[in-house]
């Protein structure tokens, strides 16, 4: 199981698309969005840092599903099924791969915030932000897996991109929610991305994440988890 995790993490990190889209992009967008216009808004730099780290984590988490779809096409999943590995180990290994591969995105955006943008937080706040963003990315990994098991490689890529961009924008990961009209702001409060970022933001502001955020994220976790399981069962017949 650990071997499988190691193999899949290696394969993911060798994917140039993943490194550019999942790590370099969020860092660049963060630096761009916070330094354009020359404003010196410390609060926005911190909030955007969390938002972009969250955006990068969501992208990487969803990317796991792209990997699954690819494995389906190449026959790798089929080959795994004729080794002594159980399908539960394979699925769990993939989910764990997803949760490991979100770390580079989170860490690099936080590093860019601390080193380039001069964001200052207590040590525990850095650690807690990273940890919460890491844990909070799990629903997105499951969403990606659900897409990957269900769809072809191409449609998974498109579905992941739509989920990623849509949820990121509506959830306020790119632009401050204050810019949104009132109705969109209330929709935003129910998106997993918004609550996901809230986990990190609350820590940077020195308080525990609200119950609302935890409740909404848990609901999404269950929903995306069931989606992944149902998709996997469907695919087991054709893989």
């Amino acid at each position: 199981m650990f071997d499988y995790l190691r193999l899949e993490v290696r394969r993911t990190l060798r994917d140039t698309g993943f490194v550019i889209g999942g790590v370099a992009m969020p860092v660049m967008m963060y630096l761009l969005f916070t330094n354009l216009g020359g404003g010196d808004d410390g609060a926005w730099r911190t909030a955007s840092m969390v938002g972009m780290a969250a955006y990068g984590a969501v992208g990487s988490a969803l990317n796991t599903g792209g990997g699954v779809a690819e494995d389906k096409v190449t026959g790798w999943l089929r080959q795994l099924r004729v080794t002594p590995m159980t399908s539960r180990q394979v699925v769990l290994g993939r989910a764990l791969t997803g949760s490991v591969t979100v770390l580079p995105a989170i860490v690099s955006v936080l590093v860019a915030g601390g080193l380039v943008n001069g964001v200052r937080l207590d040590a525990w706040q850095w650690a807690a932000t990273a940890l919460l963003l890491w844990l909070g990315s799990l629903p997105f990994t499951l969403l990606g897996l659900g897409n990957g098991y269900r769809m072809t490689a191409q449609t998974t890529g498109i579905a992941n991109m739509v989920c990623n961009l849509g949820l990121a924008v509506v959830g306020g990961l790119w632009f401050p929610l204050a810019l949104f009209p009132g109705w969109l702001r209330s929709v935003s409060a129910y998106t997993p991305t918004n609550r996901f970022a809230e986990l990190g933001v609350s820590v940077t502001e020195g308080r525990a994440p609200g119950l609302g955020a935890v409740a909404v994220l848990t609901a999404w976790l269950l929903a995306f988890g069931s989606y992944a399981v149902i998709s996997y069962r469907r695919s087991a017949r054709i893989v």
Partner: protein
Amino acid sequence: MTRTTGTTARTTAGRPRATSAPPVTGTGTAPAVRFRGAVKTFGDVRAVAGLDLEVGCGETVALLGRNGAGKSTAISLLLGLDEPDEGSVELFGGRPEESVRAGRVGAMLQDARPVPRVTVQELVSFVAGRYPAPLPVAEALRLAGVAELAGRRVDRLSGGQAQRVRFAVALAGNPALIVLDEPTAALDVEARHAFWESMRDRARSGRTVLFSTHYLEEADAHADRIVVVDRGRVVANGTGEELRRSAGGNLVSFDLAGLAAESLGLLPGVVAVEVRGERARLRTDDSDATVVALAERGAIRALEVVPASLDDAFMALTSHDRETV
């Protein structure tokens, strides 16, 4: 002008093989593979239509058939990748999944593309590590002829190289049963030769090998037994020699020269008649009797008698206008 060539059937050279090797795993006397009336339907297509097949421990068996004969579906069933709609498929006396889970099976699947972004060494080590008693990775790489590619990425190899890597993957776990679906399709002559050499090495060490192919020569040269599959069922089962005999041992051909072809099938020994233009080809299991009968009718222009090839046997066994064999 009448000329006859030898009428004795071609003999094949003796082949080294381990016909009486003991089974590798302690699973009693159950055969390595047993299909009993297995049926698998996809939509309207009965890909496997009542397949009965047994492969004993230590045997090397070829599954021979045209494309679409049901070979790959049969292999999916025996690997537990698919469930039969009817009948049963057993490996070592139990459900296929159990044997796969226990590491008794290694397989090379058809149409698998290279796993992206992983090196040969990483891939083979990983697969070997899933099995309870694997081959040393270097040994698996050597047997498959990919030792010098160990550090290369699998998705950057040529088709033939990638196919050899898939062979290494099948061998890596040192399984008791090795299943190979069209194992030599992308190999050049030299690689093919090396491949069969390694496979024979495995067979000698007591492994059961089941491979599918549509190359007759391969099946004849490298298997203890050939199982001919057509339209989802077994139509013949035996050594190459037995198949040649069962399909009619010799081929008698001559120019019709205006003679009517209708009654040729009634001549002694004749089992099949084929007319191509002016030339008639009779498959016969008693060429002497056939030739005498033809001579009585004066049908001896450019008469020729040759042993039926395995190709002829295969064509006869799988020709679709003959329902029974």
